[in-house]
């Protein structure tokens, strides 16, 4: 009979969250190979932490079913004008989520 639930994994505890709501962060531009969930279009751009969401395994580990590292995730808010050079509307924004390792302090 199949198992009734995916096997529980023993995961190392997550560190305390490094950023708090309102902090300004820059998205790192680490090399790509095989897999990432950090979009190209936000890399190198400075945004603001809008929410500390949850702690979970990082995608680059989970995508290969590793007992991966647990990190704090954040919703980061960007100004559209910072993302796209041609953007015309001053107030428009974009939000997306990122695990901590892809973010660094901007100031």
């Amino acid at each position: 009979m199949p198992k009734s639930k995916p096997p529980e994994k023993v995961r190392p505890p997550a560190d305390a969250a490094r950023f708090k709501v309102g902090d300004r962060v820059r998205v790192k531009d680490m090399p790509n190979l095989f897999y990432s969930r950090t979009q190209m279009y936000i890399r190198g751009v400075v945004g603001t932490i809008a929410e500390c969401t949850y702690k979970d395994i990082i995608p680059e580990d989970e995508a290969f079913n590793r007992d991966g590292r647990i990190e704090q995730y954040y919703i980061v808010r960007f100004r559209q004008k910072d993302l796209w050079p041609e953007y015309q509307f001053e107030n428009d924004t974009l939000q997306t989520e990122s695990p901590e390792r892809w973010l660094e302090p901007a100031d």
Partner: protein
Amino acid sequence: MSHSHKPGESGADLPHAAPTVEEITDFEVLEIAVRELAIEHGLFTAEDHRRFTEWTESIGPAAGSRLVAKAWTDPAFKARVLDDAVKACKEIGIDWAEPTGFGTPSDYMNLRVLEDTPTLHHVIVCTLCSCYPRPLLGMSPEWYRTTNYRRRLVRWPRQVLAEFGLIIPPEVEVRVEDSNQKCRFMVMPMRPEGTDSWTEEQLAEIVTRDCMIGVALPRPGRTADVHPVHKARHPVQE
């Protein structure tokens, strides 16, 4: 989207083999093969598949519509929705832990409901795949999954919204939510004028799926999302 082109199509004078008339497509074949092998190898049971299918058939955007309508008429409920949307869903009969006891494998349990205001309009996308709050809105529409929508919405949101017939005034902030990790998002639009005396049921009728994605706004008389429909060859059997 069914352009069949055949480069190298020449020599029509050569005789073809007696054609094998395909009753079913290659993807249909592959689907059957994978499902049967998985069951034969005990990876899951036919009963698992049936139970999950039953759950899939039970979901749809009507749940989201009920949630918004209730939030419009009950400020305390709205506060609970904005505070912990997964928990608030239980009050309208949606349990994110279904159908497995720990939720579906792909929807996680981190719902955020994004509240529109007179100065802020939300619209959702998942540029990396098509993450979508299935337990509350059902299956995503095909256009939401296209690379076209995913490519363009994050960079030209106002143009894409205009193609959906939605013009947002320049002074209103458009906020795109790119749902790329494990949070799922749904838009709670503003209650339109002219609906003061309406019941929750009446209100729910104008909160269509597109309104909860953020590509349309609710208004009296607008009770359906109208798009051209691409028909299935072998549609889902009820």
